[in-house]
């Protein structure tokens, strides 16, 4: 493939960047307007009295309970528990996933033999294993970590195996022609070449681990944000429930953003 080597036209580049800035501005405007429209519609619905008042509480009461939640120590205790569950399950699941992915990607025979299992098991709902995990690890944090690790393992293993196979063959031949040792092949060619797919797999794994941890907490637990959601629900404290949901959304978004920045993969 011969890319033509043109020196980039500076004015063209600037024009392009300029357009991009105004694009971002108008998309931001649309996004904010969408939020305002939803909030306005919600508030109107709430005040119209068409629906049961407690199901659609006023924006202002949600806002107030949100701040109240952020002021309670219990929230932070639960947040810590959930964050630890996600972190631990990602560390275990992604670690195993990368290791297994490398083995499946490197060995054509093992890949052909076992990858179908990983491939077809990957989209199955892991939450059905939750009762098993409770029996093995108890109702506490450990069962959530086990289930979360199981969930993100598949995503990471598949993307690692795929990334390994997609390493440009000619780069491997270059390494061999310079008589690289197996260790040098791994650290100087395979790992850097696989960086993007592996990190992307870990990012997707983070999403899966988050979903699984929260879902498991809502099912059976004694701490964590999912547990807190169910507690509030049992009191039928709708403003607090919505407030907590919004907080969880924002936190998950921030977590994803940070991970995206750290791994250098955008969106």
């Amino acid at each position, binding site marked *: *493939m*011969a*890319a*033509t*080597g*043109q020196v980039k036209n500076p004015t063209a580049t600037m024009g392009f960047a300029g357009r991009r800035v105004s694009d971002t501005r108008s998309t931001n405007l649309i996004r904010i307007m969408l939020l305002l429209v939803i909030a306005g519609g919600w508030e109107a619905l709430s005040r119209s009295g068409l629906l049961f008042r407690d199901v659609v509480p006023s924006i202002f009461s949600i806002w107030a309970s949100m701040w109240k939640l952020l002021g309670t120590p219990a929230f932070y205790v639960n947040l810590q528990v959930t964050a630890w569950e996600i972190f631990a399950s990602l560390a275990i699941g992604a670690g195993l996933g990368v290791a297994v992915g490398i083995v499946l990607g490197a060995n054509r025979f093992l890949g052909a033999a076992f990858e179908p299992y990983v491939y077809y098991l990957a989209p199955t709902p892991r939450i059905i294993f939750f009762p098993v995990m409770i029996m093995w690890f108890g109702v506490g944090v450990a069962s959530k970590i086990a289930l979360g690790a199981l969930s993100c393992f598949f995503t990471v293993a598949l993307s690692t195996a795929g990334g390994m196979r997609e390493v*440009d063959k*000619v*780069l491997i*031949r*270059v390494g*061999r*022609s*310079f*008589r*690289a*040792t197996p260790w*040098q092949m791994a650290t*100087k*060619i395979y790992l*850097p*070449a696989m*960086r993007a797919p592996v990190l992307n797999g870990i990012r997707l794994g983070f999403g899966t681990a988050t979903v699984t941890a929260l879902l498991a907490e809502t099912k059976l637990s004694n701490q964590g944000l999912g547990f807190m959601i169910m507690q509030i629900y049992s009191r039928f404290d709708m403003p607090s429930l919505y407030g907590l949901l919004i907080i969880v959304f924002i936190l998950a978004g921030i977590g994803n953003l940070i991970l995206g920045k750290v791994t250098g993969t955008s969106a």
Partner: protein
Amino acid sequence: MTLASTAATGALSGQSQLVIENVFKQFGEGPGAVTAVDHVSFDVKPGEFVSVIGPSGCGKSTLFNIIGGLLDEYSGNVMIERERIAGPHKAVGMVFQEESTFPWRNVVENVAFPLELQGVNKSERLDRAHHFIDLVGLKGFEKLMPSALSGGMRQRVSIARTLVSGPQILLMDEPFAALDEQTRLLLGDKITQIQQDLNQTTLLITHNLTEAVQLSDRIVVMTYRPGKVKRIVNIDLPRPRTSDVVSSDAFGHYVAEIWADLREEASRGMADSESARRASSRG
């Protein structure tokens, strides 16, 4: 290998640095087997520039992989300093046809790669890399990533990366195949100049006739499947050479002479691929 030992063994083997002896390679087995390289023999002397030319499908790339030690299962011998090679030989530096720069390394880091493998310390690594970057005419581009370079520049990075490892034999597989004609001629100049400056023993695999005549001391013409040596032509054009040589009468004479041989092989190859296409469209 030191210069002294090269000279000593060279004297014993009649100055031959690289000897290809009865090399035979077949892919597959039984009636469906394809003979890619059929008892090919030739040699490359120290400081000499030899090209292997032939139509697509004459087993050129197979030969390249065998000589480079990337393809182990073949019969016959590839000898360097009178020893049969086993795997990639340290005397051979390969330049590949495909895009082969590391996209995650900038130009200096790419060029310094083989030195990094050898455990050369950083300051010496950079010194030597800069020297060869300069030699291929990429001074000022050291910090750029390959994605910011043109195809021709990236191929020069690959060539510098191979030269920095100090190969006794430079082995190149159609390194300019993906480039346009002008870039190809200018890069040819660069290669000629480097080869003359370093007295670099070079074996070039190509399907481009003008390129082969422009650069070579000798040309090995291959037949279309199975790939045999059809003829070896000495190119007695004066050195030092530049791309200006392409306008000389002698150059035209050589091109016409080799083309007569090559045309026959190329048209056999074309007929073959057409009948194969017809067969597959029928089936």
